[in-house]
Each structure stands twice: as C-alpha cells, then as structure tokens.
C-alpha cells in the first residue's frame, strides 16, 4: 500500500534529536503512516466551533510569591551529572 502521508522521517528525527538507521527509518515511516491514517478520523470529522482544550480542569495562571525557597544543594544538583568538572557539569565543546 502506498504511503498516504509523505513523512520526511529523517527531518522529523532531526527535529526530535534522534538518529535513525535506514531500517528504523523505513519501519517508523510505515508505522507512523498507519497511525496517522487512523488519526485522520479527526480531520474528517466536523468539529464545529469547539474551543481547543489544553487542560481538563480549569486551572490558569498559577503564580507563586517571588520569594526564595529551599532547593537542591549544589551537590544534589550535580549528583547525577554524567560528567563533571569541579562544581560544574561538563559537556562537549560548543564554541569553536
């Protein structure tokens, strides 16, 4: 069956910060096509003037007082860092 959705799977993977093997790319493109074909029930349905809902419960614009509160200690914050250098998290070079 030809794909109904022309998904540029490598582009999507790049946006998602994933790399796919050619096998994975073929498999995911086919599976996503099947799932999107099913999801098209939404595009075929007349949704009228319904407002989009982001959350089921009406909770909006929750603010907290702008005062300091306890958080992680430096040691706690660094405790799971894969690579650290002194009291900092180390990452590969960013700027040439």
């Amino acid at each position, binding site marked *: 069956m030809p794909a109904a959705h022309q*998904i540029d*799977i490598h582009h*999507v*993977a790049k*946006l*998602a*910060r*994933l*790399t*796919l093997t050619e096998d*994975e790319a073929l498999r*995911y493109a086919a*599976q*996503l096509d*099947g*799932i*999107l074909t*099913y*999801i*098209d*029930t*939404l*595009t075929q*349905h007349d*949704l009228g003037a*319904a*407002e*989009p*809902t*982001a*959350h*089921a*419960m009406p*909770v909006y614009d*929750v603010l*907290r007082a702008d005062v300091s509160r306890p958080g*992680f200690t430096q040691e*706690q*914050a660094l*405790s*799971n*860092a*894969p*690579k650290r250098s002194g009291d900092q*998290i180390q*990452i*590969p*070079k*960013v700027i040439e």
Partner: protein
Amino acid sequence: MLASSTITTLRQQLVAGDITPRDIILDLAKAIESRNTSLGAYLSWDIEAALAEADKADTSGPLGGIPIAIKDNINVTGQPCTCGSRILSENYTAPYDAGAIQRLRAGGAVPFGRLNMDEFAMGSSTENSALGVTRNPRDLERVPGGSSGGSASAVAGDLAIAALGSDTGGSIRQPAALCGCVGIKPTYGRISRYGLVAFASSLDQIGPLTKTVADSALLLNHLCGHDPRDSTSLNVETPDFTASLGKDIKGLRIGLPKEYYINGIHPGVSASVQAAIRKLESLGAIIEEISLPHTELGVATYYVLAPAEASANLARFDGVRYGRSASAADLMEHYTRSRSEGFGPEVKRRILLGTYVLSSGYYDAYYIRAQKARTLIRDDFTEAFKKVDVILSPTSPMPAHKLGEMKDNPLAAYLEDVFTIPVNLAGLPGISVPCGTVEVEGKALPVGLQIVGKALDEATVLRVAHAFEQS
C-alpha cells in the same frame, strides 16, 4: 502470610501489637525473593533500607508501618527511578521525594521496591520495558497490562500490600483489570505530579493499586491534596473517602454509554460486565442508557495529544544533567547519540509522532484539531453527568493477551485503550474493580469493571465500587 494481606488488616494487627512493620517487610522480601523471578514485577528492592525505615516508622499514623511499592517513574530519595528505560537505568539516583511520596511518609507508610513499567509509561502491556519482562499472576504466559504492569502484577500476585501507579490513558485501571486487583485514577489535579517523571502532563495522574476498594479509599485520603510545586494541583478539600464506603446505592443513577456496548468487546468480558450491571441494579441502582457521541474520536485525539506532550517532555533527556550520556565530538552528536542509544522503539515512535504533529504545517491539522476534539469529548461527559451519577463500562474490551502477541501492531494495541482514554481526556475519576473472570485456554482471566464519576466525585465512584465488591 502477611504479603497477601490488605492495608486494613495489617493495620489492625499492627495496632494490636501482633506484628511489627519489620515483620511485614521481611515477609514481603521472602515472597519477592521466591516469586519475583517468575513474575518480574519488581525491577529492584532494597531490604536493608526498608527495614531501617520500618524500624523508625510511626505506627500511630493511619498508614503507619505499611510498605507501599512504587512504580519506577516516581522519585523516592536515594532510590533508582528508571522509568523502564535504558536512558535512566545505569546512572540515576533520585535526589528527592515526589509529592505523593512525602504524603505517604507523612501517614507513616514505607516506600519499598521499584516496579516495572512500559518505558516512560508508553504502552499497555509492560512489554515496552527495556529492563525486563513482567507476567500476569493469573497466567504467566500473558501480559499484566500496562503501563503500571509491575504495580498490578505485584499487588494481584501478593508481592506487595499495595502500590502506586500512574495513569495517562488507562495505565492504572487497565493493568488492574487484567491482573484482577483494584486501581483508581483520581480527578486530574487531585494528587501532586511533582516528582512523577512527566509523560503527557495534561493527562498524567498518580493513583493507588490495591487488593480492596477500602484500601484505595484509605490511600487516596493521604495521597490527595494541594501541592504548590505542581501548578496543575487543585487547591480543594480532600474529603474522607473511607466515609463513603458501606453506604447503599439505592436510587443512584448509572449510565451505560450506547457507544461503548458495541462489537469488538470479548464475549466473556461483555457477559461479566452485564452480570455486574444486573447486580448493581439488584442493589437498587437505576440503569439508564446514555450517549457519549464523540467516543469514536477518543483514541485518535489521545494519540495526537499524548505523543505531542511526550515529545516536548522527553526533550529533557539530553545526556547532560542526568541519564545516559554518549561520548561524542560535538554537542549535537552528544544529544542525538545519547537519546538514540537510550530510548527504546515505542518511545522513539511516540517522540517521532509527537514531533511530526507539532511540526510546522501540521500543527493546526493535528494538534489544534485534537484539542478541539478534546473539548467535545469533555462536553459529552458534562452532558451525561446531568442525567446520571456514574458511568459504567468494561475497563478493557479484551482480557490479557499473550506475551509477544501484539508486538508488530502498535495501532491495534492503541485501540484497546478505547474505554479508559476518554476519562483522562476529560480529567475525570475512574476506578477498575474485578468483576469476574473469562475462561481462555483453561485459565480464568480477570475482567475489570470501570466506574467513572464526575470531577472530584471520587466518593461516589468508591461507594459504587465498594457496594459491588461487597455484594
């Protein structure tokens, strides 16, 4: 055997001085060591740490000295929190307690053991865990359901007194149904999500899996409550949920959505649920047909919104601050290699799907449309609850399938969430209680009855579940 007991029974024995919290941990440890190899419910457990906590437990608290097993996506200080994923399995130790865990501790409970799950809670069989196979205690060749499959397997298999799970599209209720225990997803916002590793933030909710409805009510009393660290946490009173138990259901109006009772439900599941409906009717409930006209949009809506939110939430796994970290020459390669090596196939599939539906040119066609459909689905329930007090359905249209049976057909697996998903989309409370079994290949497989209530009306949901359980 203490491991097969309920919270309520153990509390009586503790108060009477017949047992100590240490006895419960030791008995559980013995059960886990002899049977977890076959069930695979737990990924890890630390007996020494639990004994140390049990010895200090304040047994005067309402949950005093009771061990609660925890799904492996809820942070407990000093313990692993793998989310069933290789990206967190080797090098993450939780530096803090989730809000729900703090509340359990305040009641005197002892968090003990980490339970297997579909990777990042994505799945309904626990087969998507990257860290091990979990089996259904009623038939070891079958899945326990998911994503809280470890929680349900442990509770139904008497390897836990009670457990915490999380439910985004049915992940507490469906495994509870398939394994034969009780599982409740409270109203969205009732229980703090602080410290629950986020999958789809607008749908995720923590809840208990227990052996009885009374135990679920008791745990909810302690789990619910406002937490300012979760901006979606509701600032509302928590009633005493145990007070609603034992009240009769005479005159209570029960709705059966005509869209739910359709072909595609296993005949044995259908028969069990019909028998449950007759039983509730005999207890004085009034049964009415109702309509939830946008039911057919539920699964499609969910599989746009949940992957979209997941693709954003899982962006945090970049190999920098925590989790699996690949060696790479530059930062971009560091991100992509860490993520590609760390995430399993279902998680990648959903991240790709979520990224696609949010990407430029598709956002309106998929994401906004799904949010509109969500409004219609929620409005369906609002209308229905003008006529009835609770809504009944099967929890899952099918009993547990065999391990590996659905492996190559993700869409077919998604469609089995048809009765649980709309409840998350609408943010409502829903419970699954055992309602009989169906005979498949010589094994009696459990069937779950789902009872859905109005927002914040867990009390009525529990009352109906309890009346049914006790009848």
